């Protein structure tokens, strides 16, 4: 007991309560300060700290320090604080509030000891993050935000239903590792978590909404929702074999889409799913080493993915454009952003000396021995490097776009570069000296990543990819100086298996999406006037009208009599 036994989410709730009354110029500082305080608090939290309160007839565990929760908590608060620096120039209270509550919700989940608390923060996260999507301000962002919210409320409902069923089956509300005997409740909880993790089939909200948020909004969005889902999976479902399959599907499916995407934030959004796939696969393997690998990869992913989103955000901020076909040649105008982005890209591609290398090697080591899984993950990392390591930076910053030279509208403010710098330093530090990170992992770890075999493996795949790309690049540029068939360029180097995967799956999901859109556009008019839809009133118009759609008095009287007569006869 050292008086620190309270949930760190309180800092965020306090921050959210104070933000509206603080002067506008102090708010940016508060957005850095409160996450930083929470960071310090989590670092000092004694092992196994708990806070129990009784609520209704249940005992709630508002705080339960587990090794796993602490890793995520540290990563969340670190990145929230740096994101505060990145958003220093932004003065919109709504976004600041939403980001504060959103980060708080994520933190609440990872420190919650019982499912009820998890659910409350889970929903808080859903609602707060929807506001970040809406903050995009465009009509598309508004619609996407709605789809996003509905998706997450659905996921939350699945979770709720699962929790209720599990609670009735066992009478136990604590968050715990489930044994692998399948029950409906566990399946629903798993599905609820997979919605947030972005499991293909349940993932549509992610690439739909993240690219439509604001410059700063997407920084927050990328870090929290999927990673809390990873946390839930790691805590509740370690060693569930089905997760290995899920993870592989996620890693490959999303990377194939990323290779084809044109919008830089969309590419990054797909990569979130792909990277989460690695973590999910490692969780499916189970065991201390694999869970450590998943946690380390999640931590690192939060760092470098945020870094890359910050780079994309800086581009959007400067030229108000994120389509690759409309970008190019910006390197000279934002040299620091390019360099720092490339640090993130090297980390995600798993280059030695960057943090991604260490955790990715750990994940690969964990799946080692399962041939298919191992090679499929290796394949996914080729796609990763191709899309975010080469394609994205090349067409954004280096390629000379002769058709549409992007126009710079303003300079990226220094605080953005500073925030990226902080993350880049951490990425490199964890890569060069991984023991810094090992100390925070839930289980003791002594993995030595810089073995010749691993380093060679880590280098040969990206280098091979790069060579192919370089060769193709010359061919393309040599032949098509005027008209660049970018489409061709994206698709040809895509891994063959990716193409096979894409063929059917792509058609299936686009058919589903189109079907859903059609369904919605059919359903909405039905609700304009239910009386007309149900053919109750033949004279109704398209919209409900109180005069035309009023029932005659006799109908009400008749219905009343009918009910009474029927009930009397039924019960006598």
């Amino acid at each position, binding site marked *: 007991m050292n008086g620190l036994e309270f949930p760190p989410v309180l800092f965020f709730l306090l921050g959210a309560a104070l933000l509206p009354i603080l002067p506008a110029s102090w708010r940016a500082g508060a957005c850095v300060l409160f996450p930083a305080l929470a960071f310090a608090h989590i670092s000092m939290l004694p092992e196994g700290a708990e806070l129990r309160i009784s*609520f*209704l007839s249940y005992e709630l565990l508002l705080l339960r320090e587990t090794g796993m929760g602490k890793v995520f908590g540290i990563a969340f608060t670190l990145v929230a604080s740096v994101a505060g620096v990145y958003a220093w120039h932004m003065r*919109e209270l709504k976004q600041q509030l939403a980001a504060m509550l959103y980060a708080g919700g994520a933190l609440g989940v990872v420190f919650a000891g019982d499912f009820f608390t998890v*659910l*409350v923060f889970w*929903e808080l996260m859903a*609602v707060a993050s929807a506001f970040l999507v*809406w903050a*995009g*301000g*465009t*009509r598309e962002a*508004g619609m996407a*935000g*709605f789809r996003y919210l*509905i998706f997450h*409320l659905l996921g939350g*409902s699945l979770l709720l*239903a699962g929790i*209720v*069923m599990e609670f*009735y089956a066992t009478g136990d509300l604590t968050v715990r590792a489930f044994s692998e005997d399948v029950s409906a409740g566990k399946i629903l909880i798993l599905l609820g978590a997979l919605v947030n993790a972005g499991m293909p089939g349940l993932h549509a909200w992610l690439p739909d909404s993240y690219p439509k948020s604001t410059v700063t909004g997407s920084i927050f969005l990328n870090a929290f929702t999927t990673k809390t889902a990873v946390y839930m999976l790691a805590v509740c479902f370690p060693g569930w074999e089905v997760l290995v399959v899920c993870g592989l599907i996620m890693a490959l499916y999303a990377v194939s889409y990323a290779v084809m995407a044109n919008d830089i934030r969309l590419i990054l959004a797909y990569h979130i799913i792909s990277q989460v796939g690695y973590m999910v696969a490692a969780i499916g393997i189970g065991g201390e080493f694999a869970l450590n690998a998943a946690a380390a990869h999640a931590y690192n992913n939060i760092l470098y993915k945020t870094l890359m989103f910050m780079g994309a955000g800086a581009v959007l901020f400067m030229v108000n454009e994120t389509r690759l076909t409309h970008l190019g040649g910006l390197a000279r105008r934002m040299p620091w952003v390019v360099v720092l982005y490339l640090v993130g890209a090297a980390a995600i591609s798993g280059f030695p000396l960057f943090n991604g290398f260490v955790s990715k090697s750990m994940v690969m080591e964990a799946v080692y021995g399962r041939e298919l899984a191992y090679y499929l993950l290796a394949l996914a990392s080729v796609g990763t490097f191709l899309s975010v390591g080469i394609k994205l930076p090349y067409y954004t910053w280096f390629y000379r776009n002769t058709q549409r030279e992007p126009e710079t509208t303003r300079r990226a403010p220094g605080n953005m570069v500073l925030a990226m710098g902080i993350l880049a330093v951490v990425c490199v530090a964890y890569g060069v000296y991984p023991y810094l990170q090992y100390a925070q992992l839930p289980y003791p770890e002594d993995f030595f990543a810089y073995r010749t075999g691993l380093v060679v493996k880590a280098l040969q795949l990206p280098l091979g990819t790069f060579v192919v790309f370089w060769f193709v690049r010359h061919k393309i540029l040599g032949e098509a100086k005027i008209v660049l068939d970018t489409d061709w360029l994206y698709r040809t180097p895509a891994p063959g298996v990716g193409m096979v995967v894409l063929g059917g799956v792509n058609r299936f999901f686009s058919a589903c999406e189109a079907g859903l859109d059609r369904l919605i556009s059919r359903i909405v008019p039905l*609700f*304009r*006037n*239910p009386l007309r839809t149900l053919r109750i009133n033949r004279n109704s118009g398209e*919209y*409900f009208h*109180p005069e035309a759609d*009023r*029932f005659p*008095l006799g*109908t*009400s*009287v008749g*219905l*009343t009599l009918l*009910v*009474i007569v029927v*009930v*009397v006869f*039924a*019960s*006598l």
Partner: protein
Amino acid sequence: MDPWVHLAVAVLLPPFFGALVAVLFPARRTNLPWIAAVVSCGLAFFASVAGLIYAVTEGTVHYHLGGWEPPMGIELVMDPLSAFFCAVIAGVASFVFIHGKTVVERETPEKVIPFYSTALLLIGGLLGIILTGDLFNLYVFLEISSLAGYALVAIGDKRAPVSAFRYLILGTIGASFYLLGVAFLFMETGSLNMRDVAEIIPIAGDSPATVAGLILIVFGIGLKMALFPMHGWLSDAYTHATSTSTAIIAPIGTKVAAYVLLRTCFYMFDPEYVRNEIPLTTIIGFLGAAGIIWGSVLAIAQRDLKRMLAYSSISQVGYIALGVGLASPYGMIGAVLHTLNHAVMKACLFLVNTNILERFRHTHIPRFDRTYRIRMPWTMAAFTVSAISMIGLPPTAGFFSKWYLVLGSWERSNYLFLAVIVISSLLNIVYFFRVLEKVYLRTDGEPYDDRNEQEDLALKREEARGSMLFPVLFLAVGLLVIGLANAFIVTTFIRPMIPDGL
């Protein structure tokens, strides 16, 4: 005799005295009618809270009016259930009256005195229904409150008299059925006192007349409660009545009928009997479930805020009926808690509706836009809190009553009810978020830039006056407080209500 037992009558008297005081001194320039209304409802509220605490700690109060012993005389019964309902009704009514100060003067300038007088008669009648322990006396109070209700609806816009007429026809039919049911029970048991009847029925046995009597009472009252499909009177009456009339009638009128339902089904009859012998509660539950969906679907179709809220009331009453239908402790807790929650949030929403009407002169949802949140930030914030509570997101009050209903449905393995509760939450999201979307989101397709910011800065805050804002905010904060304190409310007040056989 313990002087505290007089609390039972102390709840009932202030509204009736207030109604007299409001008429006796027709001083045009003073606020006397308003003061009489607020003070008498406040007194009734304090008396019922004190009575609630007394009933929970010391036991049920049986107060014999005029010293006449029942079953000949009339008794008032103050147990946790009746005291709780009295507190809800008097409390919500006080806030609505505070809010109504300027609204009534503006909307019906020449009818201020009759308005407060009839409104107090309505409150008095409703409190009487709750407190009385006599079946026929309940009918008398039912008529007092109903006649006052018809009159209140009739003091509305130019369509109000027709709506009031429909309300009167249907309400009278409901009351007649109730009276018929009471007559049947009286024939079988020879008593009108509820406790007496409850003791005689098991001895007299299960005769068709008893069953018919119970069913007539339940559905006669069901009509007053707007139980689907007998809700035909509700939407027009609520829409065309004046703002304050609606805010008085809507949150509390249907709740009192729900109370009578609870009282007859679970206290006067054996819950086991009502649940299993005749499937009465099951039927009520299914009608409630149908009403939840039907009310929500029609609420989505509405484009006028006030009418939307009226249809939403049909749906919300369905939750209470669903709780009754479960006929289990969780169902009962859910129903009673939802009565409190819905009274508070519906009052808050109708008051917000009034504030919007005062400021913008309309409540047509398609015309709402984002300037509303800048011009009336607090009102819109209160709307948001109540909307979230209606949808049932934690930690607002609405979540917890639905939670108990979900638990109850699960316990009874009634997955249909479970599905209805979940689907209706989604439908609630649809009809509230389309308002929130217009007010809080920019849907004009333009990104938010300096120009929009300039426009927004040019808008002045035109929040409603204090007397209209305070009750709205108080009720909205109340929703959060009730939500957080729900464990306390349930264990202290609602658990003791649950009758033995349930």
